[in-house]
């Protein structure tokens, strides 16, 4: 698994979709999620190089996100990637199983920091089912597992629409947060799309 290619592709997808993410955040937040994540991932992509070990790639991306993103998504995405990188350790090759453990660590990091449960209408609603689906399909290999994770992330993000937010800015809207997709869940889909594309082409 080429984590460098994954991160670069994630940065590209975020850049291409930044406006949509910001629009989602305008509806139930403060209208900056796209520009936040784009700023962070641009910096991350610049900080990375292809010759870093896979774990180090994710750790560097995570640290850069924390340093450059701001907002809620900076610490959350940053922690997710740092934890994932840490889980990979110094390994020079990453297989389906190792990546599964890394994704699980990422989810735990996000929940530890943000205290969100599934159903709170946050990125956790895409991340948690994606990780579970990945683990369930890990036996079929990296590409299949990543594909399953993407499907689950997409369904999870879609399922945030009818929810009332209990965490993040959207929670201030109370019942008015219903009917809109959570921007962080939407960007999490991009993380798994990048993963699926990278895994498929490797």
């Amino acid at each position, binding site marked *: 698994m080429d984590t460098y290619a994954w991160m670069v592709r994630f940065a590209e997808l975020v850049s291409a979709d930044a406006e949509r993410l910001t629009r989602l955040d305008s509806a139930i937040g*403060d209208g*900056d999620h796209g520009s*936040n994540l784009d700023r962070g991932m641009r910096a991350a992509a610049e900080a990375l190089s292809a010759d870093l070990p896979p774990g180090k790639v994710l750790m560097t991306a995570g640290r850069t996100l*924390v340093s*450059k993103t*701001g907002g809620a998504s900076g*610490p*959350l995405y940053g922690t997710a990637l740092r934890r994932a990188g840490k889980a990979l350790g110094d390994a020079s090759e990453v297989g389906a199983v190792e990546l599964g453990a890394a994704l699980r660590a990422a989810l735990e990091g996000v929940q530890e920091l943000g205290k969100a449960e599934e159903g709170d209408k946050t990125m956790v609603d895409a991340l948690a089912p994606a990780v579970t689906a990945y683990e369930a399909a890990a036996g079929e290999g990296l590409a299949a597992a990543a594909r399953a994770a993407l499907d689950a992330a997409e369904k999870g993000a879609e399922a945030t629409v009818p929810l009332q937010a209990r965490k993040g800015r959207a929670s*201030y809207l109370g019942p*008015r947060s219903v009917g809109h997709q959570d921007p962080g869940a939407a960007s999490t889909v991009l993380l798994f799309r990048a993963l699926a594309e990278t895994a498929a082409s490797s």
Partner: protein
Amino acid sequence: MKKLIDAVDDVVLDAMRGMAAAHPSLRVDLEQRVIVRSDAPRTGKVGLVSGGGSGHEPLHGGFVGYGMLDAACPGEVFTSPVPDQILAATTAVSGGAGVVHIVKNYTGDVLNFQMAAELAEDEDIEVVPVVIDDDVAVQDSTFTAGRRGTGATVFAEKIAGALAESGGALADVAGVAKEVNERSRSFGVALTACTVPAAGRPTFDLGEDEIELGIGIHGEPGRERVGLRTAIEIVDAALSAIDEDMPLSGSEVLVMVNGMGGTPLMELYGAYAAAEKWLAGHGATISRRLVGNYVTSLEMAGCMISVCRLTPRLTELWDAPVETPGLRWGR
């Protein structure tokens, strides 16, 4: 989008350049993105640091100076600052007596300040965070992100700043900031939305006959959209919500009628007159006040009313001299 700016990506930096040029009493570090009192750090003085998304000017950079903040870290527009920035501000003002972080209760602010505090502890700087959550428009609950931090931030920064200036200890400075937060409530109303430069269009659409009750300061929609109302009705909605949450009868209060950025001072004074009448009719006496733009939401039209139930000690700290670009008296 029509704004008096150059490049969308540089608005915060350009504003900091202007602060640097305009205020010799401030040290503005464009690299680290912090605004620091030029006499910091002062040995033995508790440092007071705040920060948050930009777009709320004069908060926080305009409140750096004698008797108030020692440093501010402005994030991108409406985006929490990053831990590196907060750490830089914290080390810049650390005089060995510890540093208080005044943090508005937003997930992003709380997380970034928390990470910065951990980094500061690594450098042996004791940090005590005080979270401001005064906005009664948001239902409070332990299952949610809780209430937002809004207007009471100004009260907490002024009063804790006065105590820190007079040599207060870390626990006391943090304690008085917490006390102010506990005794303060706010409620905001928007007549128009605002436009984040990077987004390029208004955060929400409001009809010609609509207003938003219970808005935050980040261009986020409020808790209820209602028809256009008079100033008296708007003030009544705000003060009723505050009074319901924290009964005001019998109190001496500090009141801020705060403009969100795009409402003329004339209208804010009209609203203040209505607030004074409302409070007098509900048994409260205004003994201190601010009328003007102190915690804004870019060019949003509307106002936020904040009330703090004073004690003699809080009043004394409020009256203490302050010299910042945004608030000044006594010197």
